[in-house]
Every structure is written in structure tokens, then in C-alpha cells.
């Protein structure tokens, strides 16, 4: 658990973060979203003491981080930055082993850990361990960057625009992979992004920041349904809001008993996908199946519209 308690940071006369408090619960993904200059990256960097707060306190697992040396603290927190920041003169293997080496793990343990991580990220150790970063694709570099951050099994992972350098198709995949991985490892993630879509797709909770202040801190559904007036409202975007809300709701939640014609849609798909399917087919309802293939009734256009209306 990360507690940010009344934290302020000024640079000269400029207030980057102003008296901000929020709590990230253990094992959750919190996305910090805002425009550039909103102070979101400054806030992130205060969590691993790359930047020191000018006021307030930050506690991780109840412990005030100012009582731990910055270097020791950072070895226990994963850190992923935009454009991966891999060391260009080191192999993939050595890059991933950076923090374990700083922690003086023995060589055999580091080698085992590196191999496990490469497997976890779908990179064959025999092929990739000895490659250099410039020999990898953008998506692979990004995965190695995340693997490096997770190498010493941190309980907290900080990510600053981790997908910023990727093209849109790879980005969507990288996002899904991160989400699945986080659910598997249970690591607490704080992720900075300027992309509301990304914040909604990944965040258990979203912290919207503007000019150093926290404008709203809520679940994606709450933010979409009841955005704080002003900045958050504008950021959420009127035209996109119903679609974004639908993308958060599974088909299973809107399914009703009954029959419908045509190919079935999975109950784990989002209502947004179901709506798009309905529009393409020109149909009023779709059959729904569970993930094991059993029929689960149907999802009707009316039901989807009803869920989208909650957004208002």
C-alpha cells in the first residue's frame, strides 16, 4: 500500500504538485492521468525519491520512505520509463540482471531469474539473452524494460508512459500483457499516462491531475459516469464517454434469457464490442455464450443502450 500524504513539490516559484493526497491499495493498478505539466511524472518520481517532496510524506507499507536511503529504496521498486532506457552496451541478460546485481545476488540465482523472466515475457532465452537492445524490435525492448523492472521481485512497480514509444497496434497488445501479468503477480502498479483511453483500460482507479492538483480519484466507471465538473469532464470527452463506459462492462452483465440469430458473442467481451457487432450486422440482438461455449441467452440493443445511459 502506498500512502501519499499532503505532498507538495515546488521548483523555484513553480508548484509542480500541490498538497496532494491519495492512497494506492496493495495489488491495484492506479493510473495517473493528466496533460503535460500536470505534475503526474513529478508525483511518480517522488514515490521512488528520484525527486524529493518539499512538503508532506509518502509511506509504502506504512514506512515513511524518507527514512530509507534513495538508492536502497529504488532497488526495491520497479521503474519503467518511456523509451525503455535500456543500457545500450549491455546484453538483454545483463540489462535484466541490473538490480539483482546491485543487490549482490549470486550469479546462478541471477541467471535463473533472467531466464524465468524472458520466458514470462515470451522471449526465448536461447535467442534473446545475448542480444543487445538495438537488435530488438520496439515491442521487445519495452518488454525487456518491464522484465528488468521486475527482476528483483519488487512489490511496487512505477511506470512513466511505458507504452509511449510504441506504435498503436503493439501498444494495445503490450497493455493487455501488462494487465494480465499484473493480475498474476499481484504487484502494485502506479502508471503515468496522458492517454485517458489507456488510463481507463488499465486502471483499477484513475487519479486525474491538473496543474499539480488531484482533480478526481475514482474507478474508471465512476469517472465516466460522474466526472468532476470542468477539467475531468473535458478530459473524459463527451462524444466518447458512452463508448468508453460500455467498454468497461462485460456482455455477461447485460445478458438476458432468450434466443437470437447469428454467430454468438462471448460473455467476457465488452458491451462496446457487442454494440459494434450489432451495428455491423444490423441486428437487434446477439446470442451470448460462456467462455466454455454454453449458451448464456442473448444481449439486446435496448439493454446496451440502457447501460450507456447510466453514463449521463
Amino acid at each position, binding site marked *: 500500500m502506498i500512502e501519499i500524504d499532503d505532498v507538495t513539490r515546488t521548483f523555484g516559484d513553480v508548484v509542480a504538485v500541490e498538497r496532494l493526497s491519495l492512497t494506492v491499495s496493495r495489488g491495484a493498478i492506479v493510473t495517473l492521468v493528466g496533460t503535460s505539466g500536470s505534475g503526474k511524472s513529478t508525483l511518480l518520481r517522488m514515490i*521512488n525519491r*528520484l525527486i524529493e517532496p518539499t512538503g508532506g510524506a509518502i509511506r509504502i507499507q506504512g514506512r515513511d520512505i524518507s527514512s530509507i536511503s*534513495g*538508492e*536502497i*529504496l*529504488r*532497488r*526495491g521498486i520497479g*521503474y519503467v*520509463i*518511456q*523509451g*525503455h*532506457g*535500456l*543500457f*545500450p*552496451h*549491455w546484453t538483454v541478460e545483463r540489462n535484466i540482471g*541490473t*538490480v539483482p546485481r*546491485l543487490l549482490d545476488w549470486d550469479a546462478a540465482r541471477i541467471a535463473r531469474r533472467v531466464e524465468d523472466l524472458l520466458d514470462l515475457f515470451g522471449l526465448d532465452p536461447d535467442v534473446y539473452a545475448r542480444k*543487445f*537492445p*538495438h537488435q530488438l524490435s520496439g515491442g521487445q525492448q519495452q518488454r525487456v524494460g518491464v522484465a*528488468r523492472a521486475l527482476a528483483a521481485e519488487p512489490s511496487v512497480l*512505477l511506470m512513466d508512459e511505458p507504452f509511449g514509444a510504441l506504435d498503436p497496434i503493439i501498444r494495445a497488445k503490450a497493455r493487455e500483457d501488462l494487465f494480465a501479468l499484473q493480475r498474476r503477480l499481484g504487484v502494485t502498479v502506479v502508471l503515468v499516462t496522458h492517454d485517458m483511453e489507456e488510463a481507463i483500460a488499465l486502471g483499477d482507479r484513475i487519479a486525474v491531475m491538473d496543474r499539480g492538483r488531484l482533480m478526481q480519484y475514482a474507478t474508471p466507471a465512476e469517472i465516466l459516469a460522474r466526472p468532476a465538473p470542468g477539467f475531468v469532464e473535458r478530459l473524459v470527452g463527451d462524444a466518447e464517454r458512452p463508448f468508453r463506459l460500455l467498454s468497461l462492462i462485460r456482455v455477461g452483465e447485460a445478458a438476458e434469457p432468450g434466443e437470437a440469430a447469428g454467430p454468438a458473442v462471448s460473455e467476457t467481451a465488452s458491451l462496446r464490442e457487442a454494440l459494434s457487432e450489432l451495428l455491423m450486422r444490423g441486428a437487434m440482438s446477439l446470442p451470448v455464450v460462456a467462455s466454455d461455449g454454453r449458451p448464456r441467452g442473448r444481449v439486446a440493443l435496448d439493454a446496451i443502450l440502457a447501460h450507456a445511459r447510466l453514463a449521463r
Partner: protein
Amino acid sequence: MTWAPLIARLAALALLLAFILTPDAFRPVFEPLTENGAPAIYNQGSLFDLTLNHLGLVAASSLIATIMAVVAGVFVTRNAGAEFLPLSRSVAHIGQTFPPVAMLALAVPAVGFGVKPTMIALVLYGLLPIFENTIAGLRRLPESTLEAADGMGMSGWRRLLTVELPLALPVILAGVRISVVINIGTATIGSTVAAKGLGEVIIAGLNSSNTAFVLQGGVIVALLAILIYDALGFIEREAARRAGRAFA
């Protein structure tokens, strides 16, 4: 891959070695340059020994200049040393603009004749390219790489030694290369204050109006400069390759 460059290098090296080891074999080449039966080949000492002395002088002064310049370059690129940057830059620039001959004239009264004043002049003259390249190499490192190093929890020393210097090495080596080559030529003036080196051959030729001597000294110095420049260039490219084509 073509063999021509390699053959040219080996030929230059063979020519150099043949000349400093068996200068007499080249007597017919230099005979037409002499007048009144003056000796065609330098006869006041072994060319081989003078070459070794010359190289020793350059190697020692370049080593000292490299250590001083890299330490200073690292220092002024740290937060603590940033305010010394303008001052140290001025010192290095003065060292480069002050003529080495004048430096010798000033150094001799202080430390006497011989190797010492020559070393002082060569070290000061060689500082600037290495110092400037050390600063440039350290400053052009990608911000994200340095931030990653900090974010992983590296100490400042560890970051410097395992990340910054290896990545800046090709640029620093380029500075060393320039400095060494300048000093191979400049070291000849050391002979005016009695430091042993190839300058002796040239000065002896000037004193006795013997063009053959001047040419011999000049050719050896030039071949040394070309071959060493080339070899250092190879090391530099190798270092760049190891740095992972970070800036490609």
C-alpha cells in the same frame, strides 16, 4: 572487404621499421639531397633509439594528459563540479593556445633542461581535445539511460563507472587520438631543450644545412603519426561497437 587498406598499412609499417632498423640501406635514396660529401644518413645516434625515446615521451605525456583531462571532465559534469566548468575550460584552452615553444622557454628556468620541460609542454598542449571530448561524450548520453540507472538504484560511482564512461568511451578516445597525434609532431621541439627524440635529427639537419637529415626526421615522425592515428581509430571503432551503437 578489400585488402588494399590493410596492405597499405603493413607497407607503411614495414617501411618505418626497415628505415629505423637499417637506415644505411636507404643511403642511395638520400644521397642526392646532400652537398659537399656530407653524410646522407643521420650518424649522431641510433634512429631506432631516438624513435623509442620519442614514443616514450609522447606515451607518458598523453597518459598524464588523459588522466588529468578525464578526471577534470568527469568532475565538471557532476552537479558538485558544474561551477568549475568555465574555469577549467579556460585553463585547457590556454594550454592549447599557448605555443609549446614558449611553454618550453618558461619551463626551462623552473625545472631545468631535458625531459621535464618537454613533458610539461606536451601535457598542457594535449589536455584540451581530451577534456572537451570527455565533456561532450558524457553530456550526450541519452537522458532515459541515465534516468534508468538512477531509477534502478545505482550509486553515482556505479553509474559513472558501469554506464557513463563505457558509453562515452568512443568520444573520449577520439579526443585521445587527436591529442596523441598532435603531440607526436609537437614532441620534436623537445630536442631544443635536450630531451631525446626525433627532433634531434631535424635540428641536426637544420644546423648543418643537411636536407637529408631534416627529411629523415620528418618522414619518421609523419609515418608514426599516420600509423598511430590509424591504430587508435581502430580501437575507437571497436569501443563504439561495444557501446552498442547507442547513438546510431
